[in-house]
């Protein structure tokens, strides 16, 4: 009974909360810039508007073009069912589901890149090339962090790895967990195309990665892409939050802390975006390799 309530909360929070995050980030950046900025609920209005609009579809494209947004959205939604949020253990949990999580995101990335190449435009091809290149370096960082969590918790299920026992490990293996936290935050910025990897507000060839892949999408397909991007940001934010968040015995308190922490992560992302500039593209691999190395040292510290 309790599990059913928690799972329902999980699904509701996972589906309803994510579009709030880009709104919070935009508001934080506006405050730093001395502007008022768009309302925090703006992404919801944008999504509703987009789902009502018509579409323009390029004649160069095939079925793969519309498969991109669909696969991207469905894979992220399924991945969210595997991650524990708030007070709930994940609704779906089995040994090795961490591999499924990473590979579901990979499936979404593959089809997004193909949808971009389908348009036959140099712009979108460039975005797809950059996206897959940076993802290659971010994946090992994610897996090295998962190795640390697996070793500490002794379980291969995400619900167990990010579960109750993690709080007690911070005192013993705090160094490794701190390294994983920094590394996973860098991976969050990379996978969600935030500064310093990509500027989500610009439309210049020099500075786009994710934005440029979705240039030709419009209407409901674009709505699916924006919603999927918000879900992905929520997913990575949840992973980062679960690393540090303590678990209490009160369910509603846990959910409140979790929602507050996720919004806090969005504010931190907004602060980072306002204080740093985008890295030169040739320097991006250096930062991602640093993230991998930090996680790797987290593992080495545990097994030495």
């Amino acid at each position, binding site marked *: 009974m309790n599990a059913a309530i928690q799972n329902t909360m999980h699904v509701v929070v996972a589906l309803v909360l994510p579009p709030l995050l880009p709104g919070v980030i935009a508001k934080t950046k506006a405050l730093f810039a001395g502007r008022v900025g768009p309302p925090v609920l703006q992404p919801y209005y944008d999504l509703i508007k987009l789902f009502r609009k018509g579409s323009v579809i390029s004649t160069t494209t095939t079925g793969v073009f519309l498969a991109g947004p669909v696969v991207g959205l469905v894979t992220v939604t399924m991945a969210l069912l595997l991650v524990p949020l708030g007070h709930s253990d994940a609704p779906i949990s089995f040994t090795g589901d961490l591999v499924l999580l990473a590979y579901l995101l990979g499936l979404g990335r593959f089809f997004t890149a193909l949808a971009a190449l389908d348009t036959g435009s140099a712009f979108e091809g460039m975005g797809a090339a950059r996206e897959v290149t940076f993802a290659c370096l971010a994946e090992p960082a994610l897996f090295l962090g998962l190795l640390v969590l697996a070793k500490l918790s002794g379980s291969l299920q995400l619900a167990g790895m990010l579960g109750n026992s993690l709080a007690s490990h911070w005192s013993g293996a705090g160094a490794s967990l701190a390294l994983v936290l920094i590394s996973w935050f860098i991976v969050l910025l990379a996978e969600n195309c935030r500064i310093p990897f990509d500027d989500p507000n610009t439309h210049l060839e020099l500075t786009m990665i994710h934005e440029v892949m979705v240039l030709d999408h419009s209407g409901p397909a674009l709505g699916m892409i924006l919603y999927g991007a918000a879900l992905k940001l929520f997913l990575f934010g949840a992973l980062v939050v679960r690393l540090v968040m303590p678990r209490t015995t009160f369910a509603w308190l846990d959910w409140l802390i979790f929602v507050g922490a996720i919004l806090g992560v969005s504010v931190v992302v907004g602060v980072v975006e306002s204080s740093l500039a985008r890295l030169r593209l040739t320097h991006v691999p250096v930062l991602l*390799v640093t993230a991998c190395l930090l996680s790797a040292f987290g593992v080495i510290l545990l097994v030495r």
Partner: protein
Amino acid sequence: MSQFLDPFLIAALALNFVALGVSRIRGVISAVALQGVLLGFLPLFVHTDIGLRGVLLIIVTIGLKGFVIPGFLVHAMREAEIQHEVNPILSYMSSLLLGAVGTGLAIVFSSTLPLAEQHADLLLVPASLATVWSGFLMLTTRRKAIMQVLGYLLLENGIFLFGLLLLEAMPFLVEVGVLLDLFTGVFVMGIIIHHISREFASISTEHLTELKE
């Protein structure tokens, strides 16, 4: 004690990588300065009874490592009109990877050293060896004179870390560290006075070949 030490040492290790990977000289100066400040706090945790003299020394160390020397370096950059790019001999990725290999080897090597039991589990020895290695890398793979000063500062941070192990045995260690930092200040003054904006080899090398006689 180790749970207080560890975060500082992890931050120091991370700052090694930052110093090796950043492409602007100001960034490297900030990283080395921050590392110096963090290391300045460490004697508080290693030495249980510190006394007034100890606190005074810590304040002087932090002031020197975190504010005076970096201030000198920034002033030198302006006076000698040094450009902001690091211009390494070895690419950023290679220096980062070499630094990582060195840090890994340091961690493995230090577990084989015969340390006293209270020191065996700490991250002190690996962190110090890794910092010495990063400083050495920076000294040898960066062209500009100011980068070699920064490499020397990093090297010295590493030796300071190692010396923290001997703090009870050698009470004047921190003072000696402060003196070494002052020596760096003289180094930097040399750069300013001679306007060495690029390599030390911008002094005419024919004078240097006279050394072989």
